[in-house]
């Protein structure tokens, strides 16, 4: 239900018992995200695979990157109030699908290029 702290919501850190991840988790997340960045760069720059395979690698590492960010930095699993989280996550996914799939669909049909 609606709430309004007398403090007005600002600067009230600590004390509400939420877990914000340990140093270890942050380090793992950091390393994973770097690895997932370096792989696609090298795949393109050093031409590791053929064209289709490169695109597949790009898409897969992008999706994994997304997951890493959500799990290790946004603490997706740990927040209370799953309802808001779920709604926003679904909205975010819709947006991603619209942007990615919509662009591919449109550009595929574009006869100008």
């Amino acid at each position, binding site marked *: *239900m*609606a*709430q*309004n*702290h*007398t*403090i*007005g*919501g*600002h*600067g009230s850190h600590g004390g509400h018992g939420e877990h914000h991840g340990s140093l270890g988790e942050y380090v793992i997340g950091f390393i994973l995200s770097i690895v997932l960045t370096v792989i696609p760069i090298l795949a393109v720059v050093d031409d590791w695979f053929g064209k289709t395979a490169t695109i597949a690698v790009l898409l897969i590492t992008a999706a994994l990157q997304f997951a890493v960010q959500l799990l290790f930095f946004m603490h997706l699993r740990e927040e209370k109030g799953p309802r*808001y989280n779920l709604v926003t996550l679904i*909205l975010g996914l*819709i*947006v991603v699908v*619209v*942007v990615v799939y*919509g*662009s591919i*669909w*449109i*550009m595929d*049909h*574009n*006869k*100008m*290029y």
Partner: protein
Amino acid sequence: MRGEASVIDQIKDFASWFFVSGDPLIYGADVAIALTTAAIIFVLSYFGKWGWLWREWLTTVDHKRVGIMYIIAALLMLFRGGVDALMMRTQLVFPDMKFLSPEHYNEVFTTHGVIMILFMAMPLMFGLFNIAVPLQLGARDVAFPFLNSLSFWLFFFGAMLFNMSFVIGGSPNGGWLSYPPLSELTGSPGVGEDFYIWGIQVSGIGSLMTGINFIVTIVKMRAPGMTWSRVPIFTWSVLSSCIAIIVAFPVLTVTLALLFLDRFLGAHFFTMDGGGNAMMYVNLIWMWGHPEVYIVVLPAFGIYSEVVATFSKKRLFGYGSMVFAMLSISIMAYFTWLHHFFTMGSGANVNIFFAISTMIIAIPTGVKIFNWLFTMFRGRISFTTPMMWTLAFIPCFVVGGMTGVMLSVAPADFQFHNSYFLIAHFHQVLIGGVAFGYFAGLYYWWPKMFGFKLNETIGKWAFWIWNIGFYVCFMPQYVVGLDGMTRRINSYGWDTGWWAMNFTSTIGGFLMGIGFLFQVWQIAHSIKFMEKDTTGDPWGARTLEWSIPSPAPLYNFATTPLVTDRDDWWEEKERIAAGKMPKEKPKLEPIHMPKNSPIPFIQSICWFTVGFGLVFHWLWIAIPGFVGIALTLLAHSFNYDTDYYIPVDEIRQTEAKAGRGV
């Protein structure tokens, strides 16, 4: 001697490249800018106001002050964008006019479009968010007051960066959406495009943060008892607008970043010869651009709803359907972007999908119109200025919406596209929908902001002049558009037969300019002969912001209100009128407030510096800017002294001064 001369020559060369020159209009602007700056500095020094400016405004985190600064900046931008518009209309008044050169005309329409949408409509909207939302929620401030101030200053310095381009370096001239290849280095080798990119980029970050800030504020900071079905309708409209902001603005940021990489590092995201694709830019920019028009119009819908209910003395008809309509628009706005490039060869199936999705959006909009009409039906309507703007909006938006549906018919769009028909359509919805709405909002909340009412008589003059001017200006444009006149042309021949329509249209444009002057007069007059609002509720309104004194005290609500109804304040007044006891108020307690901070202001200057350095490819300016940003971020992270308490005595005194016993 030789050496010296060549140094002077070098300086001269540099200056003639760095400062825009060669046009008397620009020299006039140079002089005007220099004089205004000098005047401001003089006045501030003469009256010893620098400290006051710094303490009370530049470092403030109070949402009401931030809101006022947004509004002032936006009105100045409205003036600038309006002058641009009148320059264009002057150039078009007769065939073969020699007022603006083609190059200059391109710069003017580009600047006009960018300023009106990004630096006028957006900040005016954010100003109204800031003024009204926390008060409607019964909250003390927004969720993140520091961030709110940072958003404002980012907008402000982004806008300044963009505005500078016309006296320093040269304005962008690639249209308000800067399509490549025109906006690539090959098409626009000057710095104008980079000013465009960085001006928008810096202020865009601020917009995104405002979106997040207000979503959190609305979700988390509603007064106790304010369930979702009791949230005021304007606040709902803000929520739906902010949802659209947080999905759309990242796309803009990325798109412009890619364009910048093309220009700065020679990447080829959008250049054909390097394997890039300019169509992709068009695709991406409209993914932001289309939701953007709903971002600015949804809050206007919220304002109309508040105004109609208040001045009909009735509850808003169809509250639930209104909320549903606005939320669904904010999502659906994301599925229609292609209707802006039907003609660019995406094929029939793609066009059909987006034509239909566009037409579907018209349905919730229609629902809203009926809700407003039913709210007025059998109401006790009073014709105040906010209500007049609302009434004028309805027919205007109906016509604008219908021409919009015409444009959404893909085959027909091949005829209308990029003609004056389109110009008339989008001005009809942007002025009739957005600008009228924000005017209504400004008039409506003005007493809450400043504690006095605006003069209604002058306001009505302004209203009529604006409205007549509007129709005189834009109706002929539909006609001349169907007659084949395309947009963005700076001249036409006598043989086209377009001059009568253009002549009429220009008269209308100047009428609107006069309407604006009346509004300025209205404000000046009202400041001088103000009619003080001692009640805090001059309109007999319905929502919480009117339950407190005008202007609202620093802490907004002496005690947090307990909400038991939709339109809680109205119900409370009814209860009191019926002889019942007013709601009991809790005991006064010290109020927790955020402290002012200079960091948003300083950090935004650093952003400005970075942008400026990158525009000219001067890393010796950009890098210190980056360092400054990093330092301010660090400084803020380690600052734990961010809040304080207002003691009970002080609250009691403030309330007593406003005529309220507590």
